């Protein structure tokens, strides 16, 4: 099977690459682009959310997306979330409240939270738990993540 040409926006930059069509977005990010913030935990089954990225504004498991499917679309990874070195409010809140322990699930959980706040600016506990329910964490029990998302929501809403 020959390589395919894929053009898309990755972290606000247009890229054009020739890649094997069998590659998942996760594999592409980690091996071709050196963007290792997205992790593989469940073995590419879409169960754990450690590989979450934002595709056209929606949080998706990048292990379930073939590279050809992002052609013409826009992808944000954890490496592209902070703007000019300024952390996104979700990142700031995760750090400040202690929602990060081993950190392996953190990039995915941060992006899932960010996508939620883009759609639901003032979420309640249930909205947040629902949005994070695809992101497994074995360390934190999720409590401080939920707290962090509330804090980030307040900061984002105050900024408006």
């Amino acid at each position, binding site marked *: 099977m020959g390589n395919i040409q894929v053009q898309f926006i990755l972290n606000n930059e247009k890229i054009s690459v020739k890649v094997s069509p069998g590659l998942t977005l996760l594999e592409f990010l*980690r091996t071709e682009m*050196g*963007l*290792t*913030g*997205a*992790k*593989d*935990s*469940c*073995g*590419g*089954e879409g*169960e*754990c959310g*450690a590989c979450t990225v934002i595709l056209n504004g929606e949080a998706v498991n990048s292990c379930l997306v073939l590279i050809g499917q992002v052609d013409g679309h826009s992808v944000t*990874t*954890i*490496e592209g*979330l*902070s703007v000019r070195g300024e*952390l996104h409010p979700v*990142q700031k809140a*995760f*750090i*400040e*409240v*202690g929602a*990060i*322990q*081993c*950190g*392996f*699930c*953190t*990039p995915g959980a*941060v992006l899932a939270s960010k996508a939620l706040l883009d759609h639901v600016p003032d979420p309640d*506990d249930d909205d*947040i*738990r*629902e949005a*994070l*329910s*695809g*992101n*497994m*964490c*074995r*360390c*934190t*029990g*999720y*409590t*401080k*993540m*939920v707290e962090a998302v509330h804090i980030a929501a307040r900061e984002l809403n105050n900024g408006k």
Partner: protein
Amino acid sequence: MVNNFQTVGKRVIRKDAMDKAIGKALYTADIKLENTLWASVFRSTCHAAEIINLDTSEAEKYPGVVKVVTAKDIPGKKSFGALVSDQPALAEDEVRHYGEPMAMVIARSQTTAEEALRLIKVDYLPLDPIFTPKEALTPDARQIHPGGNLLTKYDVENGNLVEGFSHSEIILEETFSVQRISPGYMEPENSLARWNADDSIMVWVSSQQPFHDQEIIASVLSLPLDRVQIISGVIGGAFGGKEDPSLCILAALASYLVKGTVRICNERKDSFLAHPKRHPAELSLKLGANKDGSIVALDAQVFMDTGAYASYGPAVGGLLTETVGGSYRIPNMRVQTSVVYTNSPLSGAMRGFGAPQSHFAIECMMDILAEKLGMDAIVIRQKNILHPGDQVFTRVVVNETANSLPRILTKFEEVYQRYSALPTKPGRLSGVGFACAAQTMGLGAKVPDSSTHRLTWLPDGTVRLHLGAPELGQGLATIAEQVIAEKLGIPYSLITTAELDTKTTPDGNVTCASRMTYLVGNAVSLAADNLIEQMLDHAIELTGKSRQDLRYESGYIIDNHDQHISAREVIAHLAERDITLQADGTASFPYPPESTPQHLPIGMPHVMFVFGGQIARVEVDPELGTVEVTHLTAIHDVGQVINRTGVEGQIEGGVAMGLGYALLEEMPIKPNGQWVNSFTEYLLPTAKDMPESLDILILEVPEKSGPFGAKGLAEICLVPTGPAIANAVCNATGKRIKHLPIKPEDLL
């Protein structure tokens, strides 16, 4: 107690959080080296079989394959094991569990390696697999290992059991069983190894004990220890499961054989099949008590399935044995524990280390006893809890830490009232249940556990910590930095922690056993004291004053005329003369001979305890059988809090893990003969499974021998969760479920 701590007890932000939040933290699988080859493992598809022939010739010829490795290629020791060296690095004559590594393909890419795996042919002579301890212990059972199927047997008695039961006014007998679960850390096992031109090897690991990995790799490769350098990547959780080598032996072997750089990563299914789990166990308890509720005697028979290889099975069996009596004073008691080999996936160390199993039994038993006697379940616990000065059945005397137990029970009373008054959703049944917990700290008597860490006061005024035991994600480095900052009286921001590298870091021993705050805290305190002494010695020369006219306080040398010189000035002055202030601190767990009973096997007894308790409210849907934990209050004595945020984080994570144990997680064999081996069928708790209300109450009964009075926490916070939920379910439904997890079909 009023204290004026600057850093200890505060909420501090862990310094690795930033890199983790922006995706820059480098876990071992993220470390990129030039010309890295990939190794994939060929695993057994039999539960038990003799290997008649293993043919790798076709795989070797596959384009892109560099080498196929079998046991024959191992230059040194072919097997390993923390307590018993019974586990082959690669199986040669026999496989003892499904998924056991037999060979390894080293190739230019992962895809090539995986394709070549399919070309390996193996002729098995299948053997009848054995999956339960009872089966394994029948007289005519096939012997899984040459020494037989009984790996370890404990038989510990105190008092007089026969007399105890003859004096008991009520005797209860119940059998409880708990399931196999996975540590479920998010980062699967993986390793990266590089062969150097000077015939040494560097191995990156995700491990709880890099210094032990170093020894094992040296023995497998037949290399001197100083040719093996281990570096810890950022670790994505461990929970006991990374006490066993996490693929570093195979990565090192591959690298050695091809004289190159090789990466090896487990997928989740490999982690499930071939990495240690929490032991499934069956516990039969016979409990004798008086009608006033006081326990007179307890006789327990325990069978634990340790799987195909020993791992930490003997030690887990020991701690399970020690904790069967929970938090209670039981004058006549005997526990017989059999740790048994089977052809199941291996079980080993996991957070709690035997205590989650023992507590499910004893804490359900306490509720059953209360019910039989028509007593309140809190009152019956009040009657039997340990008090300072009481002896547990290993004859260890419990210290003041037991003062936390009455406080926990008082809190139960208050929360019980509150939870019982909450409205129940229509169509649901609600109930409240609770459980106490006792967990030990430390590795147990006669097990070497000294832990060394190094401090260097750098010319820029910062203090560099070489932490000799890995930070697993739980916040160990933060705790150590806080203790150092407090001892030196300088800001927390001035302490940094170096990457763990066996070449530059002293041996801090294994990170485990709820003992790191205690052990590392004490070790770095000693090192900090030493740094201060060194600085004062140098200040004599610098100031012309005598030693008794100088003192150190909060980053300053102060003389008898109240003249101050900052530590930073002293350090800068010394730097000009090429002098660096450096100190190692070593701490060991204390087992004073006068108070440590000596009649028990190695690893017993543990002499220091921590206590906790949890109370849960559940709602059960009687039509669906589903259980929702709506509220939970966790009460834990941690001694002096070091990092408040970290304490809460440990408890919240522990409750989630305990909730998974109670209601969701299990790794059984399926009707098709395959083990559950993915997160599709193995349900890890998600954000939606957590209680809508989770309250944490931290008790601070100081442990005098700990740093600033701190004690351990990591394990106990999941120990009471399972039985508390089971007791709440019984309270809601009237159904006493004696196994975990509690599933909908149990409640229909």
